[in-house]
């Protein structure tokens, strides 16, 4: 199975955001923004990221996740990790 594309990963993140942040306005979703700016609190973010990693069957250390500034950076990091896992397999 090929590693998922960035678009596919973004779709998964967006879905988990919508599931976890009930008051998020999906029409205003902008991956250049941080999840916090999109209305998520710290534990919402934990849930969104862990659900996404579970779907992708990858793990990224918390320390690396803590450095991220927005959804695009999260998608890039998850994509990079998924590709590396694919290549190692």
């Amino acid at each position, binding site marked *: 199975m090929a590693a998922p594309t960035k678009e596919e990963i973004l779709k998964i993140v967006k879905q988990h955001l919508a599931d*976890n942040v*009930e*008051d998020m306005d999906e029409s205003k979703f902008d991956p250049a923004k941080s999840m*916090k*700016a999109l*209305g998520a*609190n*710290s*534990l*919402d973010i*934990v*849930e969104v990221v862990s659900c996404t990693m579970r779907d992708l069957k990858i*793990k990224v*250390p*918390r320390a690396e996740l803590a450095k991220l500034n927005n959804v695009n950076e999260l998608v890039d990091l998850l994509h990079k990790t998924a590709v590396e896992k694919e290549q190692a397999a």
Partner: protein
Amino acid sequence: MTERVTLAREDDGIAVVTMRDEANRNAFTEPFVDELQAVLRAAATDGSVRVILLRGLPGIFCAGAHQDLLLELTSGEVDAADILLSKAVLDLPVPSIAAMEGHAVGGGLALGLCCDVLLMARESRYGCSFMNMGFTPGMGITRLLQDAVGEYLAREMMFGGEIIRGARFEARSGVNHVLPREQVWPRALQIAKRIADKPRHALVTLKANLSIRHRRMFEETRTLEAAMHRLCFAQPETRQRILENYTRPEPGREGETP
């Protein structure tokens, strides 16, 4: 140095215990546990107190055990002293109200569940993070959570470790009130005032009666929980999982949608 836990009087007969250790996000560190114990003892022994409110920071009620404390447990050198916090709250001689405006995770949720009346915020999250870190739940939560959220949701929460938005408990759990965050404290105070106008001797008598079941359940389960902990904390995997999966709620005015 600012106090981590304070005791104040809101009104006649109402004592307010506030956990306010912003630096450590209201996580159980040794000094925090000591201060909370001391404040609970002071409130418990004050003959003018008729009801006790327990609250945290606006964004975090309580984060449960600090990561450092959990890592120490894996070395087998210390005993979990936080178990005594559950007992201290369960043993309060007057009614207690947990105003959980902010997130409550793991032992932090257990602490709230030891109170007589529970209030949660719709936007905050509540859950059992224990198993995410590879060890079984503690502080009595294996027996207390069922009463708050129902048997099957409690199992899902304890097995799966999901930290759930308060809104999900609304109207389908034993939690007294699930409200928008800014309404939690006023409502808690309102309930406290209603209780505080009753005579103390009657409140103490009724509390002694109504708390029997939880106190008995707690005594039963603490032995079992301790045995499960000995098993889990001895596994080398647990240390790694604590490092990887420790849930760290952040303080501040988060959760308020901009």
